[in-house]
């Protein structure tokens, strides 16, 4: 009998469920999220899937879950009432932040409110110096006073971050002991455990965020487990982490800091696995939904990760040069560049008469004009409709009816007329400018990192990704586009391909040339042991527990690091130095002379729990029959080509190669293939498009 695994991605509007059988059948379900209790929609959605497929809870082997429950708690300030204990003199590190603001000349800027107000921040009289020596010992009575004060304020979680605790955790551990004694059930996050790395603001912020979301994540996971148990689903529950690896529900409840950006990670990981299977060494993923578009790079089968990011900064940042928005989190996360461009992005004309797109969005309500739900401002989706790219009558298999006439009228009056352009040209212009905004996201993960996009394939998903993909690829000189199965709910689908993964890091500053390789190797071994212990708890041992080591380095005196992988085997510091030099040259086009010393800053270990065999079926088949193909329609491809009669296909129609112009219409996404391009289906069910 076939076994099944389930991918569930919960977003603000929709909960997407994908059921994959070991023999390759796919069953998908899109239902409204239950905002009050996200777990409820999952359980109800699964019940519907069981009804439709005739399966029972015992057929499910594993549930893989991407969730925004932690990030929502932060964005909506609904986390725990948290107390913070810091070193005396440094009570305000959390609130002073780095001083920087994300917008220039903005007199109306408000800093994000600190997640722990000042009266809930207490100090203890202690000091550990830069090399880890105790300069002023922590008096247990002083520590007790600080803890008592917070307990009197009825905090629901406590974070502790003392200066230099990453070199000597003694004082933080003493505080933990006292907290455990006085309030055994209270969640407590120590900075030396959450993030043993240098830089007090980043470490404090990360530790506070962990404490802040612990109660809400723990109770959510408990409720979900209970709901699944009641529904007869005994399968284990794995959570997607921001870094692209899965973790168990128990580990996620302990260190929820790793599942903050759980949502968008699934799609990138799915793309990574498909790219490996197709032997595509270089892809750029492009995920476009209703309000934002995200890009990331997968190179040689590996996703790229950022080691620090801000929760809730998102599209607030006009430029990657500016920081200071949102809440800083220093844990590895898939490096996504995000721009405020989606199907709902507004189309408008600025004071100097230029056509602009977003970042304001019509959102789900009122939505684009063509949804006819009260939206009166033209959007990118309206432009796509007027160009014939999306079905003029309905979307999502008929669930959303569209009013093309209204879109036409509003677009003509508010965009085309002021520009003095024909309607089709104005709509095409809006489409191109939206694409050019999104190209900036792609450039920021490629050219700005020294990578040439022409060497990459564009891997497009999200409801709107495949509408734009070919045009954007052409503009960037990219030759190939891949549109995976279930493109519209690929974030859920991708969950099915992920592995269990845990990241550990520690600050370990040493000049390479003056270091003892054995000492460095021992430090790495300690991290490796942590990783192996955690994997063993989850049942991954022997060959199924895989370790990867890497190092963050810079030239002595630089303030920004580059990360390079470390091969297995004995520690070779010369190799490390050379690998760093090469990476510096690759990324920035230059490297320093021989005499400039390279400094090791952070050591990192990733522990992976591997599946037996592959978890990717050779071929996937949708369980739902495809509808009858819609009639061809006219689509606009720019002033030079103009309007063309364009066949509208189902995905399966591409099992024999076809030449553009073509439109592939599916339940969850639409793909536009321009004239001059060729498209066909591969054995894995992906649409492969070669641009002319």
């Amino acid at each position, binding site marked *: 009998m076939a076994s099944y695994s389930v991918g569930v991605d919960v977003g603000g509007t929709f909960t997407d469920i994908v059921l994959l059988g070991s023999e390759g059948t796919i069953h998908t379900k899109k239902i409204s999220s239950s905002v009050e209790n996200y777990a409820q929609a999952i359980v109800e959605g699964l019940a519907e899937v069981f009804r439709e497929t005739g399966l029972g809870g015992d057929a499910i082997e594993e549930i893989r879950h991407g969730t925004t429950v932690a990030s929502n708690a932060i964005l909506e300030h609904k986390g725990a009432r948290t107390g913070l204990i810091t070193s005396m003199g440094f009570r305000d*590190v959390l609130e*002073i932040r780095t001083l920087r603001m994300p917008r220039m000349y903005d007199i109306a800027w408000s800093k994000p409110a600190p997640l722990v107000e000042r009266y809930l921040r207490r100090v203890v009289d202690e000091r550990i110096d830069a090399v880890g020596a105790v300069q002023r010992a922590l008096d247990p009575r002083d520590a007790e006073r600080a803890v008592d004060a917070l307990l009197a304020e009825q905090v629901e979680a406590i974070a502790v971050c003392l200066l230099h605790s990453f070199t000597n955790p003694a004082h933080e551990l003493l505080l933990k002991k006292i907290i455990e004694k006085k309030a055994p059930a209270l969640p407590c996050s120590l900075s030396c455990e959450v993030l043993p790395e*240098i830089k007090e603001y980043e470490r404090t912020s990360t530790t506070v965020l962990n404490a802040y979301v612990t109660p809400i994540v723990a109770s959510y996971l408990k409720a979900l487990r209970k709901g699944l148990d009641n529904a007869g689903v005994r399968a284990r529950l794995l959570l997607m982490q921001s870094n692209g690896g899965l973790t168990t529900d128990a580990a996620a409840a302990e260190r929820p800091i790793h599942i903050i950006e759980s949502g968008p990670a699934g799609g990138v990981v799915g793309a990574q696995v498909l790219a490996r299977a197709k032997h595509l060494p270089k892809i750029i993923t492009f995920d476009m939904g209703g309000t934002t578009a995200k890009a990331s790079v997968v190179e040689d089968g590996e996703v790229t990760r950022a080691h620090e990011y801000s929760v809730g900064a998102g599209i607030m940042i006009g430029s990657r040069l500016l920081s200071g928005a949102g809440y800083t989190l220093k844990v590895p996360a898939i490096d996504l560049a995000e721009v405020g461009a989606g199907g709902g992005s507004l189309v408008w004309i600025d*004071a100097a008469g230029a056509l*602009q797109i977003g970042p304001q969005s019509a959102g789900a309500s009122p939505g684009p004009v063509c949804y006819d739900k009260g939206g009166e401002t033209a959007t990118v989706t309206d432009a796509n409709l007027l160009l014939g790219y999306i079905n003029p009558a309905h979307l999502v298999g008929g669930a959303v009816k569209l009013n093309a006439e209204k879109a036409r009228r509003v677009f003509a009056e508010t965009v085309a007329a002021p520009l003095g352009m024909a309607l089709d040209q104005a709509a095409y*212009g809006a489409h191109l400018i939206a694409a050019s905004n999104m*190209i900036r996201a792609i450039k920021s993960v490629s050219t700005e990192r020294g990578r040439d996009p022409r060497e990459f394939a564009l891997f497009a998903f999200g409801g709107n990704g495949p509408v734009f993909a070919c045009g954007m690829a052409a503009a960037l000189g990219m030759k190939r586009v891949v549109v995976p199965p279930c493109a519209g709910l690929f974030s859920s689908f991708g969950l099915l391909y992920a592995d269990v993964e845990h990241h550990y890091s520690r600050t370990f500053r040493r000049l390479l040339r003056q270091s003892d390789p054995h000492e460095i190797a021992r430090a790495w071994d300690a991290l490796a042991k942590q990783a192996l212990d955690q994997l063993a708890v989850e049942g991954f041992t022997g060959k199924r527990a895989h370790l990867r080591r890497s190092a963050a380095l810079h030239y002595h005196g630089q303030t920004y690091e580059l990360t390079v992988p470390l091969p297995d085997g004995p520690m070779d510091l010369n190799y490390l130095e050379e690998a760093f030099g090469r990476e510096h040259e690759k990324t920035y*086009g230059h490297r320093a002379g021989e005499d400039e010393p390279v400094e090791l800053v952070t050591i990192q270990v990733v522990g992976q729990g591997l599946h037996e065999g592959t978890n990717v079926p050779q071929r996937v088949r949708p369980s739902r029959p495809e509808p009858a193909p819609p009639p061809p329609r006219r689509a606009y491809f720019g002033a030079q080509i103009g309007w063309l009669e364009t066949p509208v296909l189902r995905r399966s129609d591409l099992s024999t190669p076809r030449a553009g112009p073509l439109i592939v219409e599916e339940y969850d996404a639409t793909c536009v293939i321009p004239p001059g391009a060729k498209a066909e289906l591969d054995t894995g069910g992906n649409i492969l498009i070669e641009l002319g």
Partner: protein
Amino acid sequence: MDPIEFELFKNAIFSIADEMALTVFRTTYSGVLKDNMDYSTGFADAEGKLVAQGLTLPGHLGSVPTAMQSIMHHYRDDMQPGDVFIMNDPFDGGMHLPDIFVFKPLYHEGERLAFACTVCHHTDVGGRVAGSNASDSTEIYAEGLRIAPLKLYDRGVLNKTLMTIIEKNVRLPVQVFGDLRAQLAACHIAEKQFAGLVAKYGTEQLKLYMRETIDYAERLTRAALEKLPDGEWSFEDWIDDDGVDYGKPIRLFVTLRKKGGHMVVDWTGTGPQVKGAINSTLSYTKAASYTGVRSVLPQGIPNNEGVFRAIEVICPPGTVGNGVLPAACAARGLTGFRMTDCMFGALAMMLPDKVKAAGDGGNTGVSIGGYDAGRKPFIYVDFTCGAWGARPWADGLDGNSHMFANMASHSVEVTETEQPIQFLAYEFVPDKAGAGKYRGGVPFRRDYRFLEEEGVLQVRSDRRTHRPFGLYGGSPGMPSENYLDPDGENRTLPSKFTMTIKRGQVFRHVLAGAGGWGDPLERDPAAVLRDVRNEFLSPAKAAADYGIVIIENQMDPKATAQRRAEIRAARGWREVPKLQWHDPLPRETGTDHVFVSAGKAENVVCP
């Protein structure tokens, strides 16, 4: 012109400027450069007119055009492919000596089409004090290596003589060369990407679009200016002194003349240039003026020549806003920040409900330098600021960079790892923010303990005698403070000084509090209670400034009503004062008196 094609071009050219800035950011050696974002990158047309700036520091808007003018003046007819120019001379297009400009002309088939431009603040360029930013030098010759506009590369060949001169005259050549490499890498990236644009658009179309990018910014700026009232407004503020002539205040005076889509910012009336090193250059004064005006314009106007066409800046030579040889100018940052605040004052007279009160005065500079036992030099340079003036709709920000710079603080732990310095405190100080319906930002203090045998401590601060002003009834913030060994001798130090510091000594700097906005008696009592609870405000000060009497964490309504009536009577305001430099009621220990200005110099008495 096709508006769509143009928009695409604009995205492309600004993304090159940003990409240059990111290259510098990621490869720099200098903390000043990375944490203070003290660098900029840009793109100019064949005539050196700024088309796009990858702006990281508002203080640099205006720098590239002035420097480009100087390059064009010297080399217009002596430029070849492969040339790279370098300069830092404040009296020939530069700003202050640590800011080194690197420019590369970009060619296609022998025709010059554009320039890639970078400017970076370097850790040290020599001179009498480590870090090359002492405020008490009295002539440019003491401040470090002065580089006239020169060719760093001549047709692709490195000028080794020049490199050797630089190497032998700066304290940390590895850092300086590392940062110069970052600048060259940014130019290199610009050149590569620009070639892509040439291939795509062709030279004629490219030139047309670059011109249109400038015109577009001008149209946006003028359209925004049109919406502001026409008229003339003046404002006066004072810098305490220049750190050489102690106690001799320096006058800043600005007049805004606005008509239609054009604004003149006229600094005539500003005091003569001074002996101390706080003389600004015209380019920097322009940047301060643009920053003020842009804060009341909508977001999103591109940074280029077009903006400068709509905003004209005048500042007579020989003033502290436009120093001439041999003016020392290393610490001119102070003057730029304060000119920005002066702009806010004038704009507040023009637009009462749009502009903030004075903040802490911009950044305080602290540098500690010397040699360790092995004669290895160390240089620690810290700039810090953090309290915004109150706004007509909200409190001033607590712990946020001044708008003229977008700087970040260094990590305490990293500094302690790399420098012979230990921090004893970095935290907010209560009771220093100016009261108001919306209060000023709360300042912080920084306590530095010195760990080497001996070093030179040099400090540039201000807002000691001339406090950050409050607006429309808001009180001014409390002055800045400097102390030596606060837990021992606790000696008060002047606002600007250079001294020898020994192992174990502690220097404490407390920022000035920011000015408030609106009548403090109109402040929401819940906001006052919150500030008391968070220990930003003591109960005594809540009663004194806001008339809010707190007993056991609760407001006592009766006592509060009585206290407020007393304050009202004692103030005797007929209408709220537009501007306050002193507390509305005398303090028990102080000798402050009230004076009010309508924004005209004649009304102001300087103590």
